[in-house]
């Protein structure tokens, strides 16, 4: 391949990336690696890759990304995420782990995630798991067993819900109904531990669980998340809208009690506020955040146990409620 600054001549070599221009994958990657100041679109425009029928653009993105991560030296063997590869020496621990994972047989294993349950006057939480079939791909996903362990705020299981969904099916569980009527006229919380287990070999498809917060005049949904940390990332929110309710929801993922410390720090400076909440084993809590000074606030929650937290915004009459994982 000619490799001057102004020459974009590519010579095909091996696997074709772009059939319209007859450009090889390796050569496009070498071009991308050799031009660190050129972005993806520039590389496509300069080489013509993806500029005619455009059907190779997605593969071109992959090739471009790999080229930038690994450099031209290893374009033919580039693996996603690898910044560099060693040429010689004993295998590293990571290489041994990768080898073990690649060559061991595949087995079903549960995928677990955490879901908040919000209940209140005309507020319901519905867990939705969709195994829908997209027309361009067809039924390629596995059959999945879905389980939801519904727990009260004190961590006690009140119900176990279960369904099996084939490709083309979905299940919707009313978690608030399973939890039972809320004790008061305000928003209360429980939790669900959601588990998916593939019943046959296939792909994951679109089965990632989502939960919908439903009121008489609004519906909003977000995906569940696992509990993998003891602290949230700092989360910045606005206090501009008066009357808006702001909450942090915390779910304790371990079978022991924990204290959770919530800190609210005004970005404009001023006194931070902290307060604590006790969480029962596998319990949960919904903490309404008071106004703190003016302007934007950075919120942060940490605990001695693994947790999953969400940030909840609601309008004054609890009709529009949004949930975001933090």
């Amino acid at each position: 391949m000619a490799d001057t600054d102004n020459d974009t001549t590519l010579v095909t070599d091996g696997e074709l990336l772009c059939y319209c221009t007859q450009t090889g994958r390796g050569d496009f990657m070498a071009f991308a690696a050799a031009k660190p100041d050129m972005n993806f679109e520039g590389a496509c425009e300069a080489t013509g890759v993806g500029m005619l029928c455009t059907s190779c653009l997605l593969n071109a993105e992959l090739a471009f990304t790999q080229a930038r991560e690994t450099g031209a030296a290893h374009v033919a063997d580039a693996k996603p995420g690898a910044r560099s590869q060693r040429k010689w020496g004993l295998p590293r621990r990571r290489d041994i782990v990768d080898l073990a994972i690649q060559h061991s047989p595949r087995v079903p294993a549960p995928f677990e995630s955490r879901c908040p349950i919000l209940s209140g006057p005309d507020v319901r939480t519905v867990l939705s798991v969709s195994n829908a079939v997209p027309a361009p791909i067809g039924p390629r996903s596995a059959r999945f067993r879905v389980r939801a362990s519904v727990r009260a705020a004190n961590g006690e299981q009140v119900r176990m819900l279960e369904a099996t969904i084939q490709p083309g099916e979905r299940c919707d569980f009313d978690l608030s109904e399973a939890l039972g009527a809320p004790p008061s006229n305000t928003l209360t919380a429980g939790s669900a531990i959601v588990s998916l287990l593939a019943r046959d070999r296939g792909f994951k498809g679109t089965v990632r669980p989502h939960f919908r917060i439903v009121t008489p005049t609004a519906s909003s949904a977000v995906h569940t998340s696992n509990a993998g940390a003891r602290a949230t990332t700092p989360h910045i929110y606005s206090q501009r809208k008066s009357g808006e309710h702001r909450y942090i929801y915390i779910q304790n993922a371990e079978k022991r009690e924990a204290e959770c410390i919530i800190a609210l720090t005004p970005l404009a400076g001023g006194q931070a506020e902290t307060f604590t909440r006790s969480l029962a084993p596998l319990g949960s809590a919904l903490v309404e955040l008071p106004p703190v000074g003016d302007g934007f606030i950075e919120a942060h929650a940490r605990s001695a146990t693994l947790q999953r937290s969400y940030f909840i915004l609601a309008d004054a009459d609890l009709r529009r409620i949004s949930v975001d994982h933090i």
Partner: protein
Amino acid sequence: MTATTAPEAPPLQSHIPVVTMAPPPGYTLHQFLPLAGLQATVDSASADVIVRHIVFRNGEQDQIVERILRLRNGVWENPDDAMFELDSDIDDASWRNGADVPFLETHILTQGSDSFNTIYGPSFYTVFDSAEHKSFFNDNALKYANYVVIDQIRAFGTWVEGYPACAVDPASNIDQSALLINPHSRPAVVTLGFEGIEQTVRKRLGARSAQRIDFADVLPAEATPWTGQVFVSGSNRVNLFFISHAQSDPADITTVEHSEVYRGEDAYVSMAQRPLQRLYRWKRAVFDGVRR
């Protein structure tokens, strides 16, 4: 094929840009770049990091705002420049129509001898607030190089994204919209398919343009109320967000969510992964001083 000497790996000087919706009518957009996370991606203790915000509309760059964040010996000299604010520049009628709406791209770059150690920047939420409506967050989308999408292309050879938990009920004032953002220099044609509904919707998006597709406007009246999965597919990938809002006022927004990819990951896992995960958790529990 001419044999060439392979050059050394070049320095990484840009993160993958992120794409997000521009503020709807009545909203202000706020971005707070996480400086600790950004610092972790910089290869040295001192560097100049360029943050460039570009608002696109109908193929044109509407606005460009650029700032340089200066890192010196591990300390950011101008942390206030990590905050970016953008007021809405679209009127109610245009937002309601949805045929031509703006979007925002955020680029993080460096130059000269400065470099990053990864192409992926730190993740962060974009905050949308309003004096009239409830505020909400948007967690942005990678303009390209999303590995879940790459896995999908490897597995199926085609691109499909969507959202599994949509809801449209005009009688209850509940509506859903798809925000389709084409940040690329070529036009794109996408098809929207709705679970349980035969009719599909095809949309052509110009280069560097965005549209809001209101589901209550495109679904047959007899199909609503409707809840379920929507899929968006096409030969070129576009960025997608799904907006939950009032049917009577599409600017009265409950939340905005990123799309879900139809995943090409194996539903089975490697047999070696479970013991390795247990070993890792044990190691973390013992060495972090946490009892199990």
